[in-house]
């Protein structure tokens, strides 16, 4: 059987659901968007116009759960990289939410550039478990109001995967849709293929932002999937117990589900979570903690409780440098998600609490994903794996190295072959220059970036995307 880890009992899931409904009905959620508030009011929420707080009934939640699709496909720019949700094994989302990059040549931490975004896309594209990319955040540049569009369109150019992003202004929407129509050849195909989805973060505790909400209500007509992504931080922006922080995060997610289903029934939603825990020594948001992954894994189980696809924050670290802390935290924040059956894990590629891209880390995280998948796949008890006859044939003493079954199995998935670990003898490892895991990861990055991009867009499409970016630069800045 596949190895299964369960974070919540059935009773605990029901308790979280009940607590979340109580929060929605009795405390309510604040909407800074007047459009959103009107939608909530028109659909039966008790709205206080002075405070902007909407109290949402259990019936509204039930109705929204009925219309939310239980499965759909996130289209990859290359159809071979489509992501069907839900998934049997966890896929990974490249996390470029931060604004810093660790310079690949010098190791210095600096603000990210468009080139960093494109390099990361190319490296992640080569990773076996990669599913979705988030474009980098860019702090500066000559065209701040069209940065987000440049990053998304470049991500389409340098990645063959599904692109997921967060944007805050409705003005950005038409450019991105024009670009997708250019890539796919028609506007109809944009709705069908779903190359692009958006991340919707509520503002804990219990607030929906205005500009972002309006932008997503505009975009909903294109039937783009929305990742609902609450980020309550237990002990600071969330209550200081994992139980209540989960219940409040779940309430924020359910309120988003209600909003988007009431606005446009049938909108594909990913029921995700990016909760954090507080570093009580500094007040900072922690992503590499065991408490973080307990919460996001629990909310992954709540997504399955509701029958919805999910993306959970994991494979994260608060380490400032590549190294042991990064690897330990990323492993411990990936394994529970994989074992509990998360569809997508958002985290690879970043250090410093999602703040800093590190190209080598993408390769390291791929290895972590591979190791976790191997544990998840468990022990094969099929008849073909009962090798009693081999045991009988070899008998006491002797070896199994010459058996057909050994030859067949040695390159199979039953025996995970790490790409980065050293398993040589001490002498051979010394002769090789004592390579470490990160130096091997660096070699892999160098190799990928030194070879021509695989599967690029045709030149005429790239020309069209560049024209759209120029137009956005002119019109938005």
């Amino acid at each position, binding site marked *: 059987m596949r190895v299964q880890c369960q974070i919540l009992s059935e009773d605990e899931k029901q308790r979280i659901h009940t607590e979340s409904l109580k929060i929605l009905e009795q405390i309510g959620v604040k909407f*800074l968007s007047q459009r959103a508030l009107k939608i909530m009011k028109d659909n039966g929420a008790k709205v206080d116009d002075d405070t902007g707080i909407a109290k949402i009934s259990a019936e509204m939640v039930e109705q929204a759960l009925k219309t939310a699709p239980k499965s759909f496909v996130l289209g990859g720019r290359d159809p071979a990289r489509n992501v069907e949700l839900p998934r049997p094994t966890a896929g990974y989302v490249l996390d470029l939410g*931060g*604004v*810093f990059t660790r310079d690949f040549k010098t190791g210095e931490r600096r*603000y990210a550039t468009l080139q960093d975004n494109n390099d990361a896309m190319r490296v992640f594209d080569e990773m076996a478990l990669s599913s979705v990319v988030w474009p980098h*955040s*860019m*702090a*500066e540049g000559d065209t*701040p109001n069209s940065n987000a569009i440049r990053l998304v369109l470049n991500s389409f150019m340098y990645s063959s995967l599904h692109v997921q992003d967060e944007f*805050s202004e409705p003005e950005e929407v038409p450019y991105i849709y024009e670009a997708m129509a250019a890539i796919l050849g028609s506007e109809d195909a944009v709705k069908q293929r779903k190359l692009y989805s958006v991340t919707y973060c509520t*503002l804990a505790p219990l*607030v929906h*932002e205005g*500009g972002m909400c309006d932008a997503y209500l505009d975009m909903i007509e294109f039937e783009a999937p929305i990742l609902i992504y609450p980020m309550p*931080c237990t*002990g*600071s*922006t969330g209550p200081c117990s994992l139980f209540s922080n989960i219940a409040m995060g779940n309430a924020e997610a359910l309120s988003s589900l209600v909003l988007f289903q009431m606005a446009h029934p049938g909108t594909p939603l990913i029921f995700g979570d990016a909760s954090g825990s*507080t570093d*009580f*020594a*500094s*007040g900072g948001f922690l992503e590499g903690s065991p408490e973080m992954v307990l919460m996001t894994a629990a909310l992954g189980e709540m997504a399955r409780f509701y029958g919805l696809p999910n993306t959970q924050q994991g494979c994260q670290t608060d380490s400032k440098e590549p190294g042991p802390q990064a690897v330990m935290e990323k492993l411990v924040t990936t394994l529970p998600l994989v074992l509990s059956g998360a569809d997508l894990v958002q985290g690879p590629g970043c250090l410093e609490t999602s*703040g800093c891209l590190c190209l080598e880390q993408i390769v390291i995280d791929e290895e972590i994903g591979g190791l976790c998948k191997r544990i998840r796949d468990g022990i094969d008890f099929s008849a073909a794996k009962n090798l009693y006859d081999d045991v009988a044939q070899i008998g006491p003493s002797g070896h199994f190295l010459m058996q057909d079954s050994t030859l067949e199995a040695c390159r199979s998935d039953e025996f995970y072959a790490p790409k980065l670990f050293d398993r040589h003898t001490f002498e051979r490892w010394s002769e090789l220059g004592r390579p470490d895991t990160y130096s091997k990861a660096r070699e892999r990055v160098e190799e990928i970036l030194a070879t021509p991009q695989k599967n690029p867009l045709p030149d005429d499409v790239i020309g069209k995307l560049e024209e759209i970016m120029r137009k956005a630069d002119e019109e938005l800045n």
Partner: protein
Amino acid sequence: MSIEDIFQSILQLKRGEIADLVQAEIDAKTDVGVILEQGLINAMGEVGNQFTEGKLFVPEMLRAAETMKIGLEVLRPLLVEADIKPRGTVVIGTVAGDLHDIGKNLVGMMLEGAGFTVVDLGVDVAAKAFLDAAGEHQAELVAMSALLTTTMPVMADCIGRFKEANMNSRILIGGAPVNQDFAIKISADGYSSDAPGAVELAKKLVPAQ
């Protein structure tokens, strides 16, 4: 009863006791300046030191600041009478477009603990509101924070407006996407990555009189 009891009540987070302790010192005719400096502000200085050393956690530091504030409220009418002024005034807020205020709140409470008057403008604060408040309160310092990359340019815009208006307020910035280089680039007077650092900066920029 002694000043030391007041000092210790803050370090031991005894918010239920401090008002009586301060009142007892007032009744004993202890100089209000001494109660303020040696009892309240010195205690918060020690709290800040312990926090920087990692001995105190944020919730403990905030409870200490709250305890100090209760004591200060008892003392305040006498401070006005004795014409004892706060160390300085700080106008604080998150810049326009940014609603993330947890770091800003932390800095505000610690600045109060260090003897500053804090005018908290809240979240999503327009440049004009910073300017108006700084003028109205004659603020020595303005502290701005941003969490979103999209709101970072707003900080530069604010600083530009302060310069245009010839305002003397010194400007501190903070927030996850901001760093020292960015602070220099936009001509901010200081940057800190955490709350105690912001207090140290504020003390440096506004020396005790």
